[in-house]
């Protein structure tokens, strides 16, 4: 009951509560566990490095791969620098348009990370709010939201994403297509993934709302959203965090898969999947560097995300320890 009085008096009690929880988590198991897991440290460092180089891509990459005027066909198909015929500054060689592979990978990673991250955020935002609403209010609201979820879950993830992406691309005029390519993908990946969060939160909300303190809070007219935000949400943060991390890896994979299938990022703003798709055509032409380097980078990113997610799940689930 102390919680409620606090809530009604303070203007913004959410942050301290959350922060306190996180700090407590760090002090206890999590931080210790992280430090004692070399693979988690390695993955975190790797991911940080990839993220940093991706953010700094415009500064550090030798070429702007999106600037058509900067591409020089004469510089096409240069092998990596350590191979015969390699040329400075094309460290990892160039593709068939004279695009520097290293720059393309840095920019491509940026796209992959942004799409992955944004789609998780969008799915989280939608999933958490709908889940809270469904669980807290119940009744027909719950029914409508959860039936929507059922429908989405009755179609395979990758199929929904392909359909949304392909349909949006087919329907849009060319001018908008380039600009909206990334948002479409974010949307396409977020749509099928919000349900998982919504279900988790809903279950927790249904339990909590029956508890006395929530009933009491209702009686003294604490606003619904405050109860949801301050009591129900923090209770299910742990599984949500793990799911979000693992979904981040999955989202990056999905983006790459869509782009590989040709319904993702266009060739003039290539993501890693697009680069692999293009490179795949030259698999037998001796131009292995066009496909291998982007593939390695993609695998490294997803691997590091998954290692962190895996560690997080184990660390937060005491049963497995």
């Amino acid at each position, binding site marked *: 009951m102390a919680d409620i009085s606090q809530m009604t008096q303070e203007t913004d009690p959410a942050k301290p509560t959350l922060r306190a929880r996180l700090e407590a988590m760090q002090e206890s198991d999590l931080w210790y566990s992280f430090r004692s897991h070399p693979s988690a440290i390695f993955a975190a460092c790797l991911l940080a490095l990839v993220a940093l180089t991706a953010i700094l891509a415009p500064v550090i990459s030798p070429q702007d791969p999106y600037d058509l005027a900067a591409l020089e066909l004469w510089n096409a198909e240069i092998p990596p620098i350590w191979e015969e015929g390699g040329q400075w500054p094309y460290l990892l060689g160039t593709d068939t348009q004279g695009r520097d592979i290293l720059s393309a990978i840095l920019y491509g990673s940026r796209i992959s990370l942004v799409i992955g991250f944004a789609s998780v955020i969008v799915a989280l935002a939608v999933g958490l709010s709908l889940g809270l609403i469904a669980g807290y209010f119940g009744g027909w609201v719950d029914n409508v939201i959860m039936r929507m979820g*059922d429908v989405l*879950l009755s179609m395979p993830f990758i199929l929904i994403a392909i359909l949304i992406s392909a*349909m949006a691309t*087919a329907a849009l005029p060319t001018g908008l297509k380039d600009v909206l390519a990334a948002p479409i993908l974010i949307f396409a990946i977020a749509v099928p993934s919000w349900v998982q969060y919504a279900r988790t939160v809903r279950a927790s909300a249904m339990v909590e709302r029956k508890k006395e303190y929530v009933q009491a809070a209702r009686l003294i007219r604490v606003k619904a959203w405050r109860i949801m935000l301050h009591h129900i949400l923090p209770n299910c943060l742990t599984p949500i965090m793990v799911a979000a991390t693992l979904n981040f890896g999955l989202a990056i994979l999905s983006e790459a898969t869509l782009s590989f299938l040709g319904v993702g990022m266009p060739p003039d703003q290539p993501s890693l999947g697009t680069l692999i798709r293009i490179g795949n055509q030259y698999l037998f032409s001796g131009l292995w560097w066009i496909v291998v380097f982007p593939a390695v980078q993609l695998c490294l990113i997803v691997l590091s995300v998954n290692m962190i997610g895996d560690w997080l799940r184990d660390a937060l689930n005491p049963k497995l320890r």
Partner: protein
Amino acid sequence: MTAFLIKRFANAAFVMLAVALLAFTIFRFFGDPVEMMVNEQATQEDRAQLRERLGLNDGFVTQYTRFVTKAAQGDFGISYRNQQDVMVLIGERFPATFELVLVATILSLVIGIPLGVITAVYRESRMANALQLGSIVGVSLPSFVVGIMLILAFSVSLGWLPAFGRGQTVDIGWWSTGLLTPSGRAALVLPALSLSTFQITLVMRLVRAEMLETLRTDYVKFARARGVPARRVHWVHALRNCLMPVITLTGMQIGNLIAFALVTETVFQWPGMGLLFIQAVTFVDIPVMAAYLMLVSFIFVALNTIVDVTYAWVDPRLRDDTATAGGANG
């Protein structure tokens, strides 16, 4: 139980109607069907006639009802591209996908279960750690990258296995199988491996987690105390307790495997439904896309319903719950 069953089937029917609405929306509103069908010389009058004949001027509800009625009878119209009955096209391709998914599922169980047991039983050993790391690598490798690498290694460099197609097939009635000929079996190896990579790691991780829990139960402790050999405890007593979730997962994942087969089928040019779908996407062949969506969703919903009903039958407590469709989704 009857009430539960009715509720569960009503729910499944509702989901299918919603999927049909989605498929219909795609069918009707993306890419004008008339523009897709007529050739370049067609006049405005031809187009108007065709529009009328296809019933595109009717109201939304009328058209949707017609779509659902026809879909329920397996009539999805004619492919814009192949000018063939869509259901015939998909029916011809179904065996290829089914065999691929079947073999991939078997592979995932045959490889995944032992690996899961090993990593759980010897969980501090170096091998278990390596396997555990390997399983993370397994889920992190995009299946198209796995496919490309397999082709590079086993087809191009070593020349051991074919890189594309189904090899020679034999028709048994309407079912064409590649399992009865040597070339058909050889052609199946790489695609099935590539498709099952993800599933193997999934099974392995699930078995590991379940085993770890089971190993802590009194039941196993008693068995040990009774002097049953460790090997027997692990591989018989403990494993038996883990199998139910594995079977559930496998059942639920079949829908996902069918969907994910489209990536594998693209890489290996495997003539299944997925390749048909991807080609339909490329050519905006909307009747095929709509039919594929409906079919895969139907398989998905059917499997989920079966799993739910089985569980409810086994465990009556679940019957009055607000059980919902769906489940593990990747």
